[in-house]
């Protein structure tokens, strides 16, 4: 067990190194400029990782299904805009690096109020209350102009001229490293929390809230404390959001972002601590990468979510962890060929599916936008029969071929697992 966790630590360290190096991989040495697209995508990944990790303090660690998590993210963002304005006035003498702490405190403070209401209940009732809170705050954001700025939101300027390290935070690369630093700090703090009495009792109340009472704990207090801490971290994420974009509108606290937090935590894997980070990275990639290429990127997110719920409820981290015993048993090589045999039909299937979706979307939204579908330099007419036929055949052949290969893959997998069983029980 010890060995496994130190291997994992190293893997995350490599991820961190990659995150540090990534902007330079896309640096244009010709013009001496960073890629704005890559930096903003990486920044988004950072803050979304914080949001997803803090959401998982509820979902994965406490078994609480919240629909209002973005509220605390958003309030951190709004508060930060006001803090930045105060800092520029000189009323609030605080370096930019520490503004996220204030944002976190704002998120935490709001979580005290709403957590008091929501954590009286658990399970479905809890989820319903949080749904109400989410709607309440979205409405409030449009009603109270003074603080929320109405539909236009509120804006500020992050160059407050006060930094611990003498940075101006004009160029977005500086902001990215600030985000990265806060992502690492927040992630480590949240990891630490899982190894404290509160974190452990949160797990316990997820497994069996009734038993918790009979070991002397008030499950409501456990939920409440966990809720307000998760609000604190969401607030930090929101603060970084405000610093990055210098404008916050009600999108930052509305339901779609709450739903995104859930998607990221779930797809990444809510049972493992690092799962939500993977989810945040993947969803952000889809969001900023695929959304550039396709009008229907949300369809892909939706299909991905449904697929994960149906076939891999443990998320990406769960899929990786399932390979643990096979890799440790030194049998991973035996899976390589079967993997190739499933991935090929899987690609055909995905190709067919994407084809159908794209053709349909070019027929409807695309036409309205006057877009033309171009593939490998050829114009493709979505009114033609041939492209539709090709896509449908790909989809049909790919699906049935995949189903066939998946079955034989399953056999190989089960065989390997049962081979390894005796070794595992001996160890």
């Amino acid at each position, binding site marked *: *067990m010890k060995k496994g966790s130190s291997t994992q630590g190293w893997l995350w360290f490599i991820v961190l190194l990659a995150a540090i190096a990534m902007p330079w991989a896309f640096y244009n040495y010709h013009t001496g400029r960073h890629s704005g697209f890559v930096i903003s995508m990486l920044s988004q990944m950072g803050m979304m990782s914080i949001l997803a990790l803090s959401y998982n303090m509820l979902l994965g660690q406490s078994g609480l299904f919240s629909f209002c998590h973005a509220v605390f993210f958003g309030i951190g963002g709004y508060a930060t805009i006001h803090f930045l304005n105060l800092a520029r006035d000189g009323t609030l003498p605080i370096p930019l690096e520490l503004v996220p702490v204030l944002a976190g405190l704002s998120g935490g403070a709001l979580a005290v109020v709403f957590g008091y209401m929501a954590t009286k209940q658990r399970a479905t009732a809890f989820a319903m209350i949080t749904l109400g809170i989410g709607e309440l705050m979205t409405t409030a954001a449009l009603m109270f102009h003074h603080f929320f700025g109405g539909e236009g939101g509120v804006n500020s300027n992050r160059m407050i001229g006060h930094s611990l390290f003498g940075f101006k935070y004009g160029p977005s690369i500086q902001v990215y490293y600030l985000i990265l630093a806060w992502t690492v700090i927040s992630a480590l703090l949240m990891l*630490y*929390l899982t*190894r*404290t*009495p*509160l*974190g*452990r*009792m949160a*797990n*316990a109340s*997820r*497994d*069996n809230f*009734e*038993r*918790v*009472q*009979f*070991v*002397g*704990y*008030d*499950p409501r*207090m*456990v939920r409440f*404390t966990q809720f307000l*801490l998760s609000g604190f971290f969401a607030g930090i994420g929101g603060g970084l959001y405000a610093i990055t974009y210098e404008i916050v509108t009600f999108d930052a606290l509305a339901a779609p972002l709450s739903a995104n937090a859930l998607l990221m935590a779930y797809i990444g894997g809510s049972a493992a601590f690092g799962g939500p980070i993977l989810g945040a990275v993947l969803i952000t990639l889809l969001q900023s990468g695929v959304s550039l290429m396709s009008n229907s990127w949300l369809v892909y997110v939706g299909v991905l979510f449904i697929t994960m719920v149906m076939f891999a409820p443990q998320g990406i981290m769960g899929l990786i962890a399932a390979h643990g015993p096979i890799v440790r048993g030194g049998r991973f090589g035996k899976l390589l060929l079967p993997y190739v045999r499933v991935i090929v039909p899987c690609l055909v299937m995905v190709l067919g599916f994407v084809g159908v979706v794209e053709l349909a979307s070019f027929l409807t939204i695309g036409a309205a936008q006057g877009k033309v579908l171009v593939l490998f330099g050829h114009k493709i007419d979505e009114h033609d029969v041939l492209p539709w036929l090709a896509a449908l055949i790909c989809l049909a052949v790919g699906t049935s071929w995949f189903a066939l290969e998946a079955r034989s893959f399953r056999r190989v997998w089960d065989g390997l697992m049962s081979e390894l069983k005796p070794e595992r029980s001996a160890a």
Partner: protein
Amino acid sequence: MTELALSLCGVNKSFGNMQIIRGVNLDIKKGERHAIIGPNGAGKTTLFNLMSGRFRLSSGEILLNGERVDGLPPHQINRKGLSRSFQITSIFHRLSVFENLRCALLWSMGYRYSFWTPLWRQRELNEKTARMLEELNLTSRGDTPAGLLSYADQRALEIGMTIAGGASVIMLDEPTAGMSNTETDNAVELIRRVSKDKTLVMVEHDMKVVFDLADIITVLVYGQVIASGPPAAVRANPAVQEAYLGSLAA
């Protein structure tokens, strides 16, 4: 009064129009091993739920070590020194066996809702947990998720969790239900060992276990106590034979 661990006075409980517990008076002395028996549906488990605060009383009083506890939520009754197990095994399934026991120790060792104490550095806590594992014969399963233990081991774990917090009154709801003969013998041995110097209250169907362990037996029929006393006296009681043992023999 203080030599009483638990004292029930005129306890009633109704669900809607159904009166389940009818005016139960029961005194349980400190250090006693007390078994509550009775036919199915007599209200034994309901009585347990009332004593541990899981249900609220319709009327009556319950004193724990001379202090009124009826109306308190379960976690507060637990902190006053009453701990219980459940008829259907109640553990933290996804946590390891070690974590289950550690969770059961946390409150009594004063950790409360601390989110700043690193668990892995609490030597006394971790040593105490390891000693409990040893006592339950579960040391080799320490890292196993509790949900994957065998049924008998899960029951043993739950007994361990029940006593871990150092409660003075231990309540076990059918601790040997569903066990084989050997498993039952082991469980009885374990219960005898861990309930030393404590007050033990248990609901049990297995008469062998009851007569093995109990100093005092209370017979509950239709929500009323029809007899209470040492095993020999209860066995000889004609009302009991009529209502309970008789029906078993028939």
